[in-house]
């Protein structure tokens, strides 16, 4: 059971496309589209969003993402009208990147708050860390570099580990659990990254990332 996602869009086609894209990164996560009006026109339909939230809820809560302002208002209103408004939250996030990041976080077992926070570009709260930092250097030998799918794999590989992991490329760093942060590094094939980890399971975190890089992220 994971947190569910609902994609609220003015357009049925847009909602379905975002669901398709985010679903690719997060098998098993319920991602439900709620786009367009019942007659097929553009707009957001309160009843459709309400139904989508009910479908997406497996008991772990639901995060709603929206495309434009009035979709946010509809989403807010749906959450406020729920029997238990604490069972869902509207994430103020970019729709496409936010949905991908949220889906990956949900697939990793993150809580509803952490999934919403991942959508907005913040890595889920790191666990308590201690101990000296360890670091490795990896070279990206896969064709697409640190693109969406490899970034998602990297972030997901750390699920459940007690370790604070940072990926540095040039003068930019990102929390390794933030898909958006990793994408923002813009690392391509042939680039070398420094990965540093701190905490109880730092060594295991670095081992998993090394493994992913050695396997060309499954390409």
């Amino acid at each position, binding site marked *: 059971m994971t947190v569910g996602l609902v994609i609220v869009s003015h357009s049925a086609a847009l909602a379905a496309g975002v669901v398709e894209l985010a679903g690719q990164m997060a098998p098993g996560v319920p991602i439900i589209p709620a786009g367009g009006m019942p007659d097929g026109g553009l*707009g957001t*339909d*309160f009843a459709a969003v309400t139904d989508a939230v009910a479908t997406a809820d497996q008991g772990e809560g639901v995060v709603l993402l929206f495309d*434009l302002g*009035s979709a946010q*208002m509809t989403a*807010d*209103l749906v959450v406020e009208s729920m029997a238990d408004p604490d069972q869902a939250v509207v994430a103020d996030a970019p729709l496409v990147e936010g949905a991908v990041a949220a889906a990956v976080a949900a697939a990793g077992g993150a809580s509803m708050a952490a999934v919403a926070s991942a959508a907005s570009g913040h890595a889920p709260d790191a666990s308590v860390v201690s101990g000296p930092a360890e670091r490795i250097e990896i070279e990206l030998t896969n064709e697409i570099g640190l693109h969406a799918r490899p970034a998602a794999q990297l972030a997901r590989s750390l699920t459940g580990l007690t370790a604070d992991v940072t990926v540095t490329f040039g003068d930019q760093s990102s929390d390794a659990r933030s898909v958006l942060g990793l994408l923002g590094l813009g690392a391509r094939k042939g680039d070398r990254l420094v990965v540093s980890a701190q905490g109880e399971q730092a060594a295991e975190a670095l081992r998993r990332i090394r493994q992913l890089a050695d396997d060309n992220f499954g390409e």
Partner: protein
Amino acid sequence: MGCRTDGVVAALKAAADTVVAHRDELVELDRVIGDGDHGENLQRGFQTFVVALTRSTPDKPGAAVKLLATTLISTVGGAAGPLYGTACLRAATTLGDADELTPETTVAALRAALGGVVARGKAEVGDKTMVDALTPAVDAAAEALGSGADIAGVLAAAADAAEKGAESTVPLVARKGRASYLGERSANHLDPGARSTSLLLRAFADSAAKHRSAA
């Protein structure tokens, strides 16, 4: 000198007639600086409300306003649905189970409606939205109440102020809603949301005046 449920329902129906009569104007205003759906969305919402009134008969003013709220929320689709829907929900909550509207509760309901619109849309005066019409309307209604106006007087003051407030949106550059994407190009146009707010208040005021002269 109150207004019972039949009077409130008559005012809401008058508002529906106004929306239908001004559909094309609202469509045109919204086409220029928005997505062009404001007139059609509101017409769909209010027409569905009129149909809903044939199926259920609200027994309190608050219940009538609440029926309008839920109908707008579930049928309008654009920003006007959640905004007017929330406004009417808050107004209905303020009216509660009272059997009749008074000048005092009319002003309180208008104030609650404004609070709902601001909470939902996060807009302020000057953002070129319905808040620019509704804010001065509430102030004027409260002032009229202070001078001893009846319901029709309170609503007439609100409608006058809303019309001026709507006109004040013409030179503004939009900071909220779809029009905000246009930046400077949104200036020199009347905001469709502010316009529909002033139309609705005028319909309420005219209906109340008719109700008064009939009484």
